[in-house]
Structure formats: structure tokens, C-alpha cells
């Protein structure tokens, strides 16, 4: 059926009320609509209720007492033009600038939409995990906060309850001192096949305090590679690239497959993808 009720709540609370009024699976939520609307058009998705968050006022980037906060309806373009995002979330801006689809998609698609869709091939998932982003979920009973890594349960599965709304993302820690991102695509039009987000925080003496490497696209959810024993206290040089990339290749198990690539191929490219993100980060430049 293509007939459905269209809801356009004017506030997050109203959105939650509408969500709560229908059972699980009876409503489809539209952020920017770049995934859900084509799916509705093709009949791949059907829901008797469509909730469009366009008027909920959740498209913003703000600095709340030193903590960057990104509303769930923030478009990639808003990120790229936000002074707060450019200063505090440069890794996210780097990712936003390379979103496949060009200007139209960057203006329309939202960070929160990509997060809630939880498609393994989305650009934004691994960087959010690498940055330690927390998702704020609003329900009729109040709010709760979850680490992105916990929010993302599996491919296209999240911790979002049927009566909840993802309001936004906060980035509690300091901005990374260095960062890198690499995505592998089969061609310009391809979804990312495998991604790697790398972020690094330095100690006062210039050695590495924390290095996070998160792989996207290879499994149902982003895969964080534990690197503390290699990186903590080490000089921030490209000497870290090989041991960290080798660790990633050894520990990460690719399980995700789609029409573009098998899990086996994704496994094979873990090392080079990780290596390029790490190299970009440690060279102080960004690649891809």
C-alpha cells in the first residue's frame, strides 16, 4: 500500500507522542529522507505512518558549556558551514565533505538519519564511534544517553525504542589532536565498501595518549580495534601505522556482504584501508 498518514511534528516532544501512539513498525521516521523516501517510492518500505522531522528544530550545531552538540536533523552542509563543527569536529567535517552524492545530498541528508538507519556502508558511523559520540534518546518518560557504539546494535538495527526519538549527538571529550579518514569505494557512485576512522589524543609530552581506530562497512556495526598497548606512550609518528594496521587486519572479522562486495573482499581490504586512515592521521594530513 502506498497510502499513509503523514505527520510533521513541530517539536521533539510531539514527535515522541506520535511515535508512542503507534506500535513498533507502524511508523517510518524521515530525517533528510534520502534513504527512506526512495525506499517508500519503490515500495521497499511501507508504513501506515510517516513522521517527518523537518519541523522539529533539531537541525543545529551548538556549543553547550564546551561540549559540541549536533541535532539529529543537522545536514552535512550545516556541519561543513558551522564554526563550532569546524573547530571541534573536524573529523566529522572531513567525512561530510566526501559524502557521495554531492551538494544535493549534503544539503538534504542528515547525520542523525544516517545514524538511525545504521547501514553498515554509511560514512558517518565509524567516525562517530571513534569520536566517542553519545546519542541522546528522548522518550515520553524522559531522556537517556547511549554511546554510539552501544546504540548501533547490528546492520539496520539500533537501540532506539519504538516510542523514542534520537534527538542529537554530544561529543563529551576533547577534540582529537590528529585525525584521519579513508573510505574505499568501487567507483564514484558506490556506497563505501570499507571505511576507517582514526583519531588521536596526545599527552603533554607529545606522545600518544589515546589512539582510536574504528572500521566501518565490514560488519553489522563499526568495529573498534584495541590499540592502547601499541600506541599509548608511543611517539606520534608513522612508525605506528604498520603495527596498528596489522592489528586491525588480525582482529577485525569482516562479516558484512552486499551486492557490491563479499565479506571476503572486505576482509582483504581491512589492512590497506586502516593503513591509509592511520597514515593520513599521522602525517597530519587527511586523505581520501
Amino acid at each position, binding site marked *: *500500500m*502506498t*497510502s499513509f498518514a503523514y505527520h510533521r511534528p513541530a517539536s521533539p516532544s510531539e514527535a515522541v507522542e506520535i511515535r508512542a501512539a503507534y506500535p513498533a513498525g507502524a511508523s517510518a521516521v524521515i530525517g533528510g529522507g534520502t534513504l527512506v523516501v526512495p525506499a517508500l517510492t*519503490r*515500495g521497499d518500505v511501507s508504513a501506515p505512518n510517516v513522521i517527518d522531522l523537518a519541523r522539529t528544530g533539531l537541525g543545529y550545531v551548538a556549543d553547550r558549556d564546551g561540549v559540541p552538540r549536533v541535532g539529529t536533523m543537522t545536514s552535512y552542509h550545516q556541519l561543513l558551514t558551522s564554526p563550532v563543527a569546524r573547530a571541534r569536529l573536524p573529523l566529522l567535517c572531513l567525512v561530510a565533505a566526501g559524502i557521495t552524492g554531492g551538494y544535493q545530498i549534503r544539503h538534504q541528508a542528515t547525520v542523525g538519519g544516517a545514524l538511525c538507519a545504521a547501514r553498515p556502508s554509511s560514512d558517518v558511523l565509524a567516525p562517530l564511534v571513534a569520536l566517542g559520540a553519545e546519542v541522546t534518546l528522548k522518550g515520553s518518560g524522559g531522556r537517556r544517553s547511549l554511546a554510539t557504539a552501544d546504540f548501533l546494535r547490528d546492520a539496520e538495527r539500533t537501540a532506539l525504542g519504538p516510542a523514542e526519538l534520537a534527538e542529537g549527538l554530544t561529543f563529551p571529550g576533547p577534540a582529537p589532536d590528529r585525525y584521519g579518514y579513508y573510505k*574505499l*569505494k*568501487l*567507483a*564514484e*557512485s*558506490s*556506497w563505501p*565498501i570499507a571505511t576507517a576512522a582514526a583519531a588521536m589524543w596526545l599527552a603533554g609530552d607529545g606522545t600518544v595518549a589515546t589512539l582510536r581506530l574504528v572500521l566501518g562497512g565490514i560488519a553489522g556495526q563499526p568495529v573498534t580495534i584495541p590499540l592502547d598497548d601499541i600506541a599509548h606512550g608511543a611517539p606520534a609518528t608513522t612508525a605506528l601505522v604498520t603495527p596498528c594496521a596489522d592489528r586491525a587486519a588480525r582482529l577485525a572479522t569482516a562479516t558484512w556482504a*552486499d*551486492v*557490491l*562486495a*563479499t565479506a571476503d*573482499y572486505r576482509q*582483504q*581490504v581491512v*589492512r*590497506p*584501508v586502516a*593503513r591509509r586512515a592511520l597514515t593520513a592521521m599521522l602525517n597530519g594530513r587527511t586523505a581520501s
Partner: protein
Amino acid sequence: MTAAGAAEPKAGATAFLTGHAHYIDDIAPDGLLYMAVARSPHAHARLTGIDLAPARSMPGVVLALSGADVQAQLAPIPYVLDPELIGGRRATVRALAAERVRYVGEPVAVVAAEDRYTARAAARSIKAAFEPLPAVVTGAAAVAPDAPLLHEADGWPDNILAAHRFAAGDAEGALAAAPHRVRHRFSIQRYTTAPIEPRGYVASWDEASGSLTVHASHQHPFQLRWSLSQTLGLPESAIRVIVPHVGGTFGMKMTGYPEEPLVCLLSRLSRRPVKWIESRAECFLGGGREQVHEVEAGFGPDGELLALRDDILIPVGAAAPSPGWRMSYVSAAAMPTAYRVPHVDIRLRVAATNAPPWHSCRGYGKEAPVAVMERLMDVIADELGLDPAAVRHRNLLTPAELPHRMPAGYAIDSGDYPTVLDSLLHQADYQGLRRRQATCPPDADWRPGIGIAFEVTPEGGGHAAGKLSEAPAGPPRDAETATVRLTPSGTVDLLTGTTTPGGGSDTVLAGLVAAELGIAREEVRVIQGDTLLCPPGGGNSSSRGASIGGAAAVLAAQQVARSLRQAAAGPLGVPAAAVKLSDRAAREAGGGSITLAELCGLVRAGAAVVPPGALEATRSYRAEQSKVPGETEAYRQSYPYFSNGAYLACVEVDCTTGVVRVTRLVAIHDCGHILNQTLVEGQLHGAMAMGLGAALTEHSVIDAAGQVTADSFKTYLLPRADDVPAFELWHHEVPSPNTLLGTKGAGEAGLGGALAAIANAVYDAIGRPRTHATTFPLSPPEVLRLMNAGPGR
């Protein structure tokens, strides 16, 4: 020779750039209904029941029909090209399946509703009951001894749609005696055309006159009119087909699809206009070009190709009346392309499967043999340690050997292949590229590769070939017809039976007529794509629009020009032979002149002496056939002209991921006399980009159950601007002796050349992997697989 403008842009382009040009979906007559199609979810199944009640009860639904409902009203769809003409088999194909479905997406019911959304919802609500049958999805499965039969009801004892053998000399003996032999398997994927505008039709039945007007995004309005008359049981005179602006055809918009009669039937039954616009997912059901070649080649120590055996298997999907399946014949008959091979044995089996039927695709089967022969040239070069260019030079036909009869019976008319190849090597600085390649550090992530390819493209309409002593003659090659008509006030109309897919052949035709009449191109109105107004013709296909259609337009314009000179002779006081037409006037050498408008006025007033009807001429033109010296056998008429070209690709291969970047694409192209360089190069750009996609990423993936899984632009990967390098093009014009204007067609060439050159460059970069197979597309996973296979020596 007529000068039509060496490098002028497409006429009327502003309307396209500013969104004012009207396409099929802009046509919205009052009372319009929208059609949607319910399709089979099974690759092969018995249809045991269908429930239209939910659809019929939906508000806004006007009609819902099943296969049983339309059986009495729609005859089977006729074949555009009869398989029996080439010894193949026909199947009975109806617009809606009533008892059995043979591919995913086969129409089983159709609805018409007040808006397109209701129509789609109603189609989706239709529940059909199926008993699944074992499906054959691949060519190998279709020809297996115990394969389920697909078309036994039409008397097929197996799934072979057609089988052919094209031979010359003694391949077996020559292979046995050859100093070197190689076996190699070439597998080419199924891929499609993906025009920006999918198919679409608007049918308007007029009850009062019992006539039908069909607007169609289509290549062949006259074929469509004929096909509809057969299926609907209407005289052709009761049907008018009109083609608006078309957003690309690439072969996909030919005749024989189920939706063509269905949209007309719904209009006739509802007595309202009905529109159907194909969705992108429906558009991705179709495809073509898939084939496997098992090649054995024998060659000498200098790379001379002595013998070639090729066992070809081509799965064309379910049998269908549209002409897509016939590409299979051309793929085999165009072997061994531009090369002199004395001993050849080519066997072709064309298999029906439970994939959606092939539709025609640009290249029309001519691109695959180029890919096979050009990869083979490189395989031979690898075996012998020779440069790939040297191996090609050893085997290319020379001008002295043309015209040349190919094993299947096609005749290559003209060209200078060795010079074209040398010119490519020079323009691309081949030696310099090789020197720079040798300096690449061995541990670099990105490895450079260089590939070359030589392409010949049979054009002008053909397909069937062979000796008349062994095969029925078949119809002669179609002529094209044009009418040039001057109005009494001196404006000029050109009516042509050709159509344009958007590439600008109408611009070329206007320029040709204008040059004959001494007026500007913009002053010629081109009327085409209307079966009521235009002379019958072949629409657009096989690079005929300018070469054949243009020649007809020139002949008609020349006849009108003669009348104008004759009419001007009296007023100017000179003999007609001394009158020249230029700058909108008839002129004589002494300076006297009379404008075209004045002249037409005199004719209208009876003051100029010309025969009746002199200001209008209709002429037809058919290309000549090559006459091969020394031949006594008569051959079927076939492709009258062959364009040719040499291509070079530079790539960089990421040896850690298999990703390929194409950094250069260089071509030297011979399409004979060039009528409009801008438009020729536009065609080449498009075809070369298509070849790039074919080489690397485009793949109509069908899973083991027969489902098309690459059904959007996120899973079917067309090249985007960033994937394609700047094109470097040069031209080497060798006029065809077989066409009035010396043209050889420019609508398809570049696809096979770019495809093969890029493939060779990828193999060059990764260094002769230990494999006896080339498998397209060379997607990153496939390239990585090849690299992991290790070096060959």
C-alpha cells in the same frame, strides 16, 4: 563533398539546458490514466491463480486485467526480426503471462488508475499464486543435458534459441600445426544501458474515429506502429506514433515490449488516454551482452595469428520478440574483427534462460568480439614476450586487403588500420609511456598500466550474413527516405524517417540540407518521429541517421535546389547551370540575385517556369554493398560500412584493494567523412565512458534464484564524471566507398575500444597473472583476485 559544419553544436540545445524541452512524461492530456504492471516474483513458475479483486476495489482504479482477461484482445507480440530467418526458434510471447512465467519481472497483470501512485499501489495489491518450477539462470545451466525446458510448448526440444557455425580454412589442422598455442576463456558480464529517461508511452484511443495515437519514448516509430497493429488487430492507418524528445535510447527503446500493446489496450477499453512510465527498478531488469568465449589460438613466433577456434555460449534471457537476442549473432559474426586469420572456426550457441530478456544495447554485440580479440592479442604478446602493438601490426588487415570478407560473411569496406594504430602510438607517446612505466618503484601501492586496442564496428544495419547459396536472402538493407519541402514564403522543412536519441543527428541533417539550399542550418525545420507526417524509415539504430538518413536528405535537397536554379534562370537571365544558391538567394556570377522568398513567390504566382511540385522532393537512399574482388559467390546484404579506431588507456591499479583509476583515454577514430566533429566526438565520449563502465564496474547482477539484485544506481555502478579522464581524440578520415557522403557511422564505436584498452591496461599493470581466463567486469574484487593468483611466469 557537402560541408555541413565541421564543429557546430547541437541545434536547439538551449531548450534542453533550460528544462524547456518536452519529454514523454511531460505529455498529459485531459482525463489521463496511469498504468502500472504487476510482475512475477519468480524466475520460472506456473501461474495457478490471480486475484484482481483488491486492486479493482481500490478507489481510483479504473481497470485491472490479468493475462486471461487480455488473451482474446491481444495477439502474441510479433518478432521484430524473425529468428527463423537465421535458422533460430520462435516462442509465443504474450503481453501478459496467463499460465507460466519465465523471468522475474514478467508482467502478469496490469492496472489503470486515476494517478500513478494509486496505479502502483493497485498493482502491488494483486496477489498471484505460483507453483515454482526449476529455473535456469545461467547459460551453462540452460544447455546442461538435464536442463528444465523453457519453451517446449513452442516445440523447442532444448533451450537453444539458435546455433551457428562460421568457418574459414582448416582451423583444426592449422591449430595442430601451429608453433604456439594458447587457450583462454573470456567471460563478459550482463550489463545494460541505463538512459537517463527510462521507457514511457502515452496511448490515446479515439472512439469516434477508431484510431489510436501513441506518444512513445522510442527509437523506431514505424516498427512500433506495425507491431501494435499486429498485436491489437488494427490497421496501421489507424495508428499514429509520435516520438517527443528522447532522453537517450542506446538500443533499449526498440520495439517488442509487453507494455507497448498493454498501454494501448487500456486506453481502448477505458476510452481515456493512458500513460506508462518505466520505473528505474523496472528499467534495470533488462540487460544484455553477456557471453563466454572458449578460445584456442595458434600463432607463429612473431605473433602471426594462424588459426582461431572459438566456442561461444550466449545466454539471452527468456525468449522475447524485441530484437535484443539478435546481438548474439553479431558477436559471433564480427569475429575475428580487424585481423587477418586464415583458419577460423567459430561455434555459437544462443541459450534461452530464466533471466529477463535481453534488450538491444549500444554496441549491438560488436563490442564483445573486440574485447575478446584485443585481450587475445595481449595474451599472445605475453606468451611471446613481444610488444602488444607489434603483435597487432603483424595481424591487422592492410588497406590493400580491403574490402575484406569475414568468415561469417560480413564485408569490411574501407580503412587504413596500420596507419591508425601508428598514429595512436605517436599521439599518445606510447614509447614514452612505456619508459615512464618502467621507472615506477616496485613497492608502490598504485601500479601504472598501459593498454591498447583496435576496434572495428560494423554499421548501417545488418545482422544476418552468409552466402546466398546457404541461406535465404532476407530483406534488403533498409533505405531511409527524406522529404525537403519549401513553403511559398521560402521556409524549409525536412521530413525524415530517422529519429534522434538526443545525440544530434537532426542537427547534422539540417546542416546538410541547408548547405544544398544555400541557407543557414537554423532555417531548416526538421520534422521526425511522427508516422503520420514523415516518410517511413528506420528511426535510429546502427549509426544510420546521418550516413543513410543524411544521404537521403541531401538527395532530396539537391533535387529542390535544381528546381530553384531552374526557376531563377529566367529572372536572372542566365542558364540554370550558372545559378548558385547562397545566403538565402539565387545568384549569378555578374552580381544579379533574387532571394529565396522572392523566388518561391514567383513560383507560387506561376511566374517562374518549373514543373508542378518542384519545391518539394522525396528521395530514398540505400548504402551500397562492398564488392570483394575475385568473389563469385553472392552474399546476403549486411552492414555496408565499418568504422574503425585505435584506443589507448592508461590506468593506475591500487594493488592493495584492486581499485582501478583510468588516467588517460586516447583514441584515433575513422568514421569516414566527418559531417560534424562536435557531434561525432559527443558520441565517442559517451561510448568510451560506457566502455569504461563495462570494463570496470557495470554489472546487471542476477542471483541464483534469478532475481536482479543490481537494481539501482547505488548497486549498478555507472561511471561518474570523476571516474572518467579527459578524452583525447583524433580523427583519421578514410571515406567509405559505400555511402553517398563517405560516412561510416559514429553512434556505437568507442565502447568496445575503450573496454578492451582499459582491460589490457589493468592486466598490464598487475603483470600477467597466472590465469587462463579473463572475467569482466574487472571490478576491484576481481582485480584483487587476479593479483592474488600470482604472476604467470
